[in-house]
């Protein structure tokens, strides 16, 4: 905007001139504010005779007024502070020069006829020959300047109102004279400048008397000068600042109305002139040139322009806009611009006027807040002019047009700037304004939404670039300065170029010297655009602009600036990581080029390193070799570059995996490091000097050093897998900088071939030893590339790959480790290598046997260990046990609680490596089946790490079960002895006297015989050897028991091997004898079954070992309590017993059958003895009846009566003989109504036995009924010997077969 002639685009603001004060600094006014030399001679001088005021008061007022200068205020209607006035303020001391009202005639011009005096016009008018516009110009900025800077609307004269009464009249008169003088001069000048007077009172404002006097004086002065009351102001003396401000504010507001009035007059004048509709004739008819004068259309444009400007002074922007638009359209109409030839200087003046009009239109629109209309107007003007230039002038394809385009964009930016649009301020975070209401809903071009300045500057920059392109296309001939060129050429090219506001081609792009510095202009514009974008956080757009800017800088070879511009972008902006490869590429190449020029080795290396990536397009003829990075760079010292992760995306990527999810301290875990290159396919391989893998946790790092392998690895393969042996870094050895900073940590060293070919992966399998429990995690990989002339270090932070971690199995095969966190390994505590074994445990442990448990504690550690043992036996009422360790005293457990017995921290001494220590645990026999948890805990210390206890636990289940179970049956038997007689006085018991009462007298009561049949079953898991079965009879006071016979015993000594789950039977004959005959109550029988058994293996094992004499079998005794039986009732009972005879009649049934069997052979006779016992003290009579049967024959009473004395017994004998063979078949039909089912039941009961019996004899059921005569009650016959059994319907007797 500054390129336009000064004043042409300035805001039109009422001009206030203060007059009569001492100006502190001589105002060196802008050229616009001074008169041109031509006019100076004829200028109208207005001066006052009085001395300029120099009082504080005057200065304060002046300062206040000057501070209110509105020249630089934003031109917008929507001001934050509403203003009541706007002035452009200038000051003069005591004299001013006004431009002449009438131009003089040119030198030596003779008026043609003295009778007709020449009409003189303003020197600014195209009518005056001295004007540059003469004869056919329209208007030029001088006219604008005249009103803006030279002719004030209000002349504000300062005078002092003297307080001294003696001088007051004199001074007042002087003031009057002066004012009148000035007024006269002004009216002579022909300007209608309003005159106003400020009187600075020296009076204090306090005294009313004085103020009365002052009022009077003021009145006198006012009247004396013919001043309007509104044009005279009094500033009281000694007032406060507020008061002064109030007065000044008041004054300016009043003056503003006056000024507006002044401009209204002027505007009215212009309109009047336009409405005349006649083109005025110039003072002197033109003689030179075309002698063409300004047409009426031209005059109309001039008048409209003036009207508009005056309206703008009055802030009537709508009026101004209308007039400007009218002027604009007329100017560009077919009557004006279309007629001006493009070679004429008027053409360019016309264009300038068009621009001025357009700018002023835009300003009016912006003033009114019609932003979209402004943008549209802007575009419209451009299109209009392009059209015009295309048609009428030299077209738009030249540097001049582009220069204008650029300028036009900048103008808009400047206008936006001056308009101070709050909605577009950076703080609003708005990039463009929404369309105003009137334009809403229309089809708008996006550009018509007013964007902020940055966009306009950027647009301008693109046009300057285009301008440069055009300039560079100028042929050399035209670039020579006219002095050097042949005249013909000069003539030819004279009008070939459009030079509207831009230099001639030989200045634009001269041949041998610098011309217009396009680059600088572009950079300047781009920088301004960039600032605007940055203010609004448009970093990416700013980056784009910076990129353009850097390109320009590179073109002008300002490398350092280019680097300064690009480096932050390159480092900070995420183009690369976000995948904007093309942008990143362009950025990097730009930076690389600039950095190489300024010898910034670090940047060059970084850029080259980044450019190796295959993501970028390959640039032909580029070496792609990092080792050659510094070939064209001068370096003073060897640069060392380190690249942080994330700084840029490197072509090298690294991944690390632990194979297992967890490991144990002291063990090692397999891991794999893969380094993949994504370099340009034909780039030189990169040799990594070393790779440092840093860990977090029990390991500090792994360093892999490059070691050139003998056979060059094939560059073809996709990945090269090698296994790297790691050694611990020797402390103080070859100290790298890393080991120094490691401190106490563990760093492992390995070496491998680290030559990385493009597109290849280097895969290293490593065994990483783990030392301490916790989590060990791989953090970063640092690649070090060392060449002779530089060092490069790249850090890559290892990242989880979301369960897609690939483990390279072979160069072509990978597998996925589906672990969420393959970078970390959980290190469990060092595993105890002490093992607790139980080498010989029996299959089952039983009650009542001492349990001897043997454990072996085996030291699997590499070194000896000092160990202690805790043993806990947990269960219900655990027995206390004994621990015996070789070389140590036995320890006995203590019962901590009722369910726990333990031995704590029993020292078991040092166990050498790979040795086993036998430990023996002895438990006493446990008497009931139970289950225990046996926990052994070995706590040991290794001499290498004495502070860390290591413990190993082992839990064993110990179940103790009953080996046997038994059931019992107590069968009555017939006691062979005679019962003692109740009536025998010898049987009377005399109670013993004295202390001997304790000693039992021999029993004298009745006796009974019983047979206790026990069936015991082995519940053991293995065969047990039962050596003895016995019963223990608990003594009872009521009776004396004696064991008379035992049957079913294993053969003595060796015993019998009882396989599991078999039933064994043992029978015991008992004789019970009551202590006295008088005792007729029940007697309890408490018996326990005692089984003595041994594990059959014990003896054998002992025998095999041989070292010791075969230990006697450990005989365990299991006692099974038998439920209590009651013997001796008072009820009578009938006992049936049989005895077998051969050839001889058995006299007495008391003789045992066995005896008889042994003694006699021959036909079996069976004697059935029915014995009735009457244990009561009553006399009882029983009737016996025996029914005959088909099954057997019998001899004996068929029917008889037995009478029994109290406590006595009697027997009846029958001899039985089985009858014939025919009875055999009907064995089932025994007795009356014997049912088949019952038989079958019996069969089932004792199956095999039954069959044997059937072979030898038959069971018959004698229909014998014993009836109590008195009670008429049938007594049950109880089997009381072998050969008799109880059946369902009665007792049955075994009859052997005849023969």
């Amino acid at each position, binding site marked *: 905007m500054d390129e336009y002639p000064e004043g042409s685009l300035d805001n039109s603001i009422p001009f206030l001139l203060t007059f009569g004060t001492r100006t502190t600094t001589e105002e060196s006014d802008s050229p616009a504010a001074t008169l041109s030399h031509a006019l100076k001679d004829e200028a109208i001088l207005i001066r006052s005779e009085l001395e300029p005021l120099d009082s504080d008061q005057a200065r304060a007022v002046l300062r206040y007024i000057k501070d209110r200068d509105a020249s630089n205020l934003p031109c917008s209607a929507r001001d934050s502070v509403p203003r009541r006035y706007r002035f452009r303020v200038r000051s003069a001391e005591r004299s001013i020069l006004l431009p002449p009202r009438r131009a003089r005639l040119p030198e030596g011009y003779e008026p043609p006829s003295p009778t007709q005096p020449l009409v003189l016009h303003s020197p600014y008018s195209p009518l005056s020959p001295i004007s540059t516009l003469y004869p056919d110009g329209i208007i030029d900025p001088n006219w604008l300047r005249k009103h803006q800077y030279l002719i004030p609307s209000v002349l504000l004269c300062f005078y002092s109102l003297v307080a001294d009464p003696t001088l007051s009249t004199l001074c007042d008169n002087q003031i009057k004279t002066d004012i009148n003088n000035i007024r006269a001069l002004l009216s002579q000048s022909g300007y209608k400048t309003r005159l106003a007077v400020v009187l600075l009172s020296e009076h204090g404002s306090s005294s009313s008397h004085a103020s009365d006097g002052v009022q009077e004086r003021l009145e006198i002065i006012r009247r004396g000068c013919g001043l309007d009351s509104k044009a005279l102001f009094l500033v009281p003396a000694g007032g406060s600042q507020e008061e002064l401000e109030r007065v000044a504010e008041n004054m300016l507001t009043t003056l503003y109305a006056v000024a507006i009035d002044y401009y209204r007059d002027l505007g009215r004048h212009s309109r009047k002139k336009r409405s005349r509709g006649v083109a005025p004739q110039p003072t002197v008819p033109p003689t030179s040139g075309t002698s063409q004068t300004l047409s009426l259309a031209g005059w109309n444009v001039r008048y409209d322009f003036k009207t508009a400007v005056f309206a703008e002074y009055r802030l009537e922007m709508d009026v101004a806009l209308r007039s400007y638009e009218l002027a604009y*359209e007329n100017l560009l109409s077919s009557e004006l611009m279309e007629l001006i030839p493009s070679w004429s200087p008027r053409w360019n003046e016309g264009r300038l006027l068009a621009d001025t009009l357009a700018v002023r239109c835009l300003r009016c629109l912006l003033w009114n807040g019609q932003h979209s209309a402004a943008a549209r107007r802007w575009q419209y003007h451009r299109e209009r002019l392009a059209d015009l230039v295309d048609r009428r002038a030299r077209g738009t394809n030249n540097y001049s047009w582009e220069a204008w385009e650029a300028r036009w964009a900048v103008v808009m930016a400047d206008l936006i700037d001056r308009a101070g649009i709050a909605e577009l301020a950076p703080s609003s975070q708005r990039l463009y304004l929404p369309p105003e209401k009137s334009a809403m809903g229309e*089809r708008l*071009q996006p550009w018509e939404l007013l964007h902020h300045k940055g966009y306009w500057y950027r647009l301008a920059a*693109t046009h300057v670039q285009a301008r440069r392109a055009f300039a560079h296309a100028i042929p050399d001939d035209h670039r020579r300065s006219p002095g050097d060129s042949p005249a013909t050429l000069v003539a030819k090219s004279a009008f070939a170029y459009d030079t509207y506001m831009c230099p001639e081609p030989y200045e634009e792009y001269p041949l041998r010297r610098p011309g217009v510095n396009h680059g600088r202009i572009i950079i300047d514009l781009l920088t301004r655009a960039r600032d605007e974008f940055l203010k609004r*956080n*448009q970093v990416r*757009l700013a980056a784009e602009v910076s990129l353009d800017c850097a390109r320009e800088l590179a073109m002008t070879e300002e490398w350092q600036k280019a680097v300064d511009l690009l480096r932050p972008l390159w480092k900070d902006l995420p183009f690369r990581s976000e*995948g*904007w490869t093309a942008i990143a590429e362009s950025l990097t190449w730009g930076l690389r080029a600039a950095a190489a020029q300024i010898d910034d080795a670090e940047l060059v290396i970084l850029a080259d390193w980044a450019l190796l990536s295959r993501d970028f397009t390959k640039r032909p003829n580029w070496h792609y070799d990092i080792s050659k990075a510094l070939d064209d760079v001068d370096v003073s010292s060897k640069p060392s570059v380190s690249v942080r992760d994330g700084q840029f995306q490197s072509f090298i990527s690294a991944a690390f995996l632990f194979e297992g999810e967890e490991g144990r301290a002291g063990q090692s875990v397999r891991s794999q490091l893969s380094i993949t290159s994504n370099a340009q396919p034909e780039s030189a391989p990169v040799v990594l000097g070393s790779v440092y893998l840093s860990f977090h946790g029990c390991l500090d790092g792994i360093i892999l050093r490059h070691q050139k392998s003998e056979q060059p690895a094939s560059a073809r393969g996709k990945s090269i897998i090698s296994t790297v042996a790691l050694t611990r870094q020797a402390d103080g050895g070859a100290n790298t900088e890393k080991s120094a900073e490691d401190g106490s940590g563990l760093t492992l060293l390995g070496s491998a071939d680290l030559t990385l070919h493009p597109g290849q992966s280097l895969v290293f399998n490593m065994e990483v030893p783990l030392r301490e429990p916790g989590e060990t995690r791989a953090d970063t990989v640092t690649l070090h590339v060392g060449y002779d002339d530089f060092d490069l270090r790249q850090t890559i932070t290892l990242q989880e790959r979301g369960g897609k971690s690939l483990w390279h199995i072979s160069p072509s095969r990978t597998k996925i480790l589906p672990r969420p966190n393959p970078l970390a390994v959980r290190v469990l505590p060092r595993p105890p290598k002490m093992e607790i074994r139980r080498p010989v445990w029996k299959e089952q442990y039983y009650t009542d046997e001492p349990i001897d448990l043997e454990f072996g504690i085996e030291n699997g550690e590499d070194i000896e260990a000092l160990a202690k043992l805790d043993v806990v036996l947990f269960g219900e009422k655990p027995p206390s046990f004994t621990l015996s360790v070789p070389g140590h005293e036995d320890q006995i457990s203590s019962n901590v609680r009722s369910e726990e017995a333990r031995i704590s921290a029993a020292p078991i001494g040092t166990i050498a490596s790979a040795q086993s220590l036998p430990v023996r645990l002895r438990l006493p026999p446990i008497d009931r089946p139970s289950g225990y948890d046996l926990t052994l805990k070995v706590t040991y210390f290794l001499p290498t790490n004495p502070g860390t206890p290591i413990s190993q636990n082992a839990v064993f289940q110990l179940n103790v079960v009953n080996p046997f179970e038994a059931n019992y049956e107590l069968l009555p038997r017939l006691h062979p002895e005679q019962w003692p007689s109740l009536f025998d006085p010898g049987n009377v018991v005399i109670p013993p006297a004295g202390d001997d009462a304790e000693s039992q007298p021999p029993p004298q009561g009745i006796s009974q015989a019983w047979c206790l049949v026990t069936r015991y079953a082995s519940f053991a898991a293995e065969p047990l050897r039962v050596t003895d079965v016995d019963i223990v009879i608990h003594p009872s006071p009521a009776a004396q028991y004696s064991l008379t016979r035992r049957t079913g015993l294993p053969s003595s000594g060796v015993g019998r091997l009882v396989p599991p789950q078999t039933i064994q039977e043992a029978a015991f004959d008992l004789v019970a004898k009551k202590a006295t005959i008088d005792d007729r109550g029940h007697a309890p029988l408490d018996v326990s079954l005692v089984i003595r058994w041994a594990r059959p293996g014990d003896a054998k094992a002992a025998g095999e070992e041989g070292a010791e004499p075969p230990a006697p079998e450990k005989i365990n005794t299991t006692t099974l309590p038998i439920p209590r039986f009651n013997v001796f009732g008072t009820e009578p009972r009938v006992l049936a017993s049989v005895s077998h005879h051969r050839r001889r009649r058995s006299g007495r049934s008391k003789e045992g059958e066995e005896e008889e069997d042994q003694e006699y052979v021959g036909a079996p006779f069976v004697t059935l003895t029915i014995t009735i016992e009457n244990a009561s003290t009553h006399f009882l009579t029983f009737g016996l009846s025996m029914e005959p049967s088909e099954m057997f024959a019998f001899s004996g009473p068929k029917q008889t009566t037995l009478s029994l004395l109290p406590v006595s017994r009697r027997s009846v004998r029958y001899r039985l003989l089985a009858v014939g063979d025919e009875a055999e078949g009907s064995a089932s039909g025994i007795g009356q109504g014997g049912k088949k089912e019952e038989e079958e039941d019996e069969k089932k009961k004792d199956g095999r036995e039954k069959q044997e019996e059937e072979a030898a004899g038959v069971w018959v059921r004698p229909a014998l009924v014993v009836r109590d005569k008195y009670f008429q009650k049938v007594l049950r016959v109880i089997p009381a010997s072998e050969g008799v059994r109880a059946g369902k319907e009665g007792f049955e007797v075994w009859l052997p077969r005849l023969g």
Partner: protein
Amino acid sequence: MATTIPSIACLGVIGRNNNPLHTSIFPSYDPATNSLRPVRTPLQFSLILSSTLDIFDLRARQNAAAGVGLTGDLGLLHAVDDRLAAYGFETNTGTRFVVVVDMRGRRVDGAAAAAAAQTGAAEGSSKRVAGAATGLREGEMRPVFKAMQAAYIQLMQNPFFEPDEHSPPAGQGGKRITSKKFAEEMRRIGEGWTPGAVSL
């Protein structure tokens, strides 16, 4: 000048991680050669697309503060210059669609348009006529975005398309969309759109 109408110069799909997923460039009418050629280089379009990201961020902040913008249509992001303008749309998964419109991308050969332009130029004050021929209404890009979103949804429905690969949930960057069908669909949308089109 006035015989040109807007056309789509570039369609861009940008992923959640600000990563470019897809870019389609369409040629514009070049009056100098009277032919169709892209108005910018791919790099420049890339820069234009990338620069919209700032505005997406800005709008997201403004919309979040104001509690508006639930449709995702951000309308005009900015006019790059007097010719190109970028329009944006953001899906609720953070994928952004950018349409770069070339306001002078197509030539219309028609007496009506030429006449309209003529009157517009002649009348002077009634510049609206010219604007009406070339401008765009608010929301005129909605069918384009709708079509793009439909295409994108179709792409997502492909069981072999893994969205996380293209916009990793945590992290940066991502792969570009390589689907031919999607590219074809973009091409269809970009070529088929004309100002005032209601559906694509």
